[in-house]
């Protein structure tokens, strides 16, 4: 079957969104289900069929979502109702809309790194040693401290399931 000529194809747009918190890396499929559920529950099946959201790329703490041109408002509002992927709490912060994925990839490169430098403690650094994440005690509990952009510090509680996070600043850490 020959491909459709460009003028007869569906017009699409791509939306770039940052995934918060820094260091959270959901599965692409799970993220698609979360976005699709958000669009469907808010607008219903009729509008969801018109928006046709799809997750086409997930890289460097950012997600690229494809949708039908003209459905910007519906998709943006629905994205603000995405609060979790499976049991992982996240927020999607829309950054830009473009007609090509390539231009959004350029935006990802230009933007500040969404993933903190010490996000993966098991990742071997240049020296070949596993990356070290500073351990801190806050409010009587032990946490791993992830230094994010600027003064932001994310703490992940140490334990059987590392799900509890605290969002602080470097000044909070100095005061504690």
């Amino acid at each position, binding site marked *: 079957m020959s491909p459709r000529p460009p003028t007869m194809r569906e017009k699409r747009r791509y939306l770039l969104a940052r995934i*918060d*918190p820094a260091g959270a890396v959901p599965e692409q499929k799970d993220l698609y289900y979360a976005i699709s559920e958000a669009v469907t*529950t808010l607008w219903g099946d009729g509008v969801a069929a018109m928006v046709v959201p799809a997750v086409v790329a997930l890289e460097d703490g950012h997600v690229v979502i494809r949708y039908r041109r003209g459905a910007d*408002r519906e998709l*943006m*509002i629905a*994205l*603000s*109702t995405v*609060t979790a992927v499976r049991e992982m*709490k*996240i*927020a999607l*912060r*829309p950054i830009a809309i473009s007609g090509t994925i390539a231009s959004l990839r350029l935006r990802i490169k230009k933007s500040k790194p969404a993933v903190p430098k010490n996000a993966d403690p098991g990742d071997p650094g240049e020296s070949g040693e596993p990356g070290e994440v500073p351990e801190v005690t806050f*409010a009587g509990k032990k946490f791993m401290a992830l230094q994010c952009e*600027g*003064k*932001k510090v994310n703490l992940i509680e140490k334990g059987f399931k590392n799900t*509890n*996070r*605290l*969002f*602080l*600043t470097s*000044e*909070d850490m100095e005061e504690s």
Partner: protein
Amino acid sequence: MKITDACVCPYPIGDSSVKRFALEARELGFDSIVAVDAPSGGFEGTEIIGGVFIRDRTAREVINHVKKARDKGGVISVLAGDNGFNRAVIGVKGVHILRGIHTADKKAFDHVTAKMAADNGVAVDLDLSPLIAGRSIPRQRAIHRYQDILMFAGRFGFPVTISSCARSVLEMRSVREITGLCTLLGMDEPDVEHALNGIGRVMEPHYSAVRVIE
């Protein structure tokens, strides 16, 4: 005009410190935030307004709490109850905001309460958390109730505030996202801007609806 998130709940209620909330608020386009049980101040260019949130109390207890909180300054807000409670609370001097109207009874806020709110300069808060995190019937009820409140606000002219009631920075939304969500309630961009400035209106010295001119 100050763009304010009318309620955030920092650590230990939530999982984010008040300074982190201030940092995120600046990135999301806010000038100030009202932080529950936090001292007033500022951080990195964002104004932090301390707030007191009185909930699950009788009208008499609310009066006592407001008397104590009034001297400290900041925004005093009360969780809405039934119609009689709301009318009593709106009449208490020092109360700035009536919150949680979406969880109250269907008849909890009527035209008489709306008129009283306008006369006393008490704002009604639109908490966006049921729109963001809620699904199906609770979200539909919240949208319906807020549309009703906005109809009264248009007619009687009491202030309206918008809050995320975020317990985490992940629950905060940008001004643009809030504008989008408020279109579900029938608000347009100037309405949303006006509501985001609602804290400024309730914190100003109050002038009654009727002024006697000698």
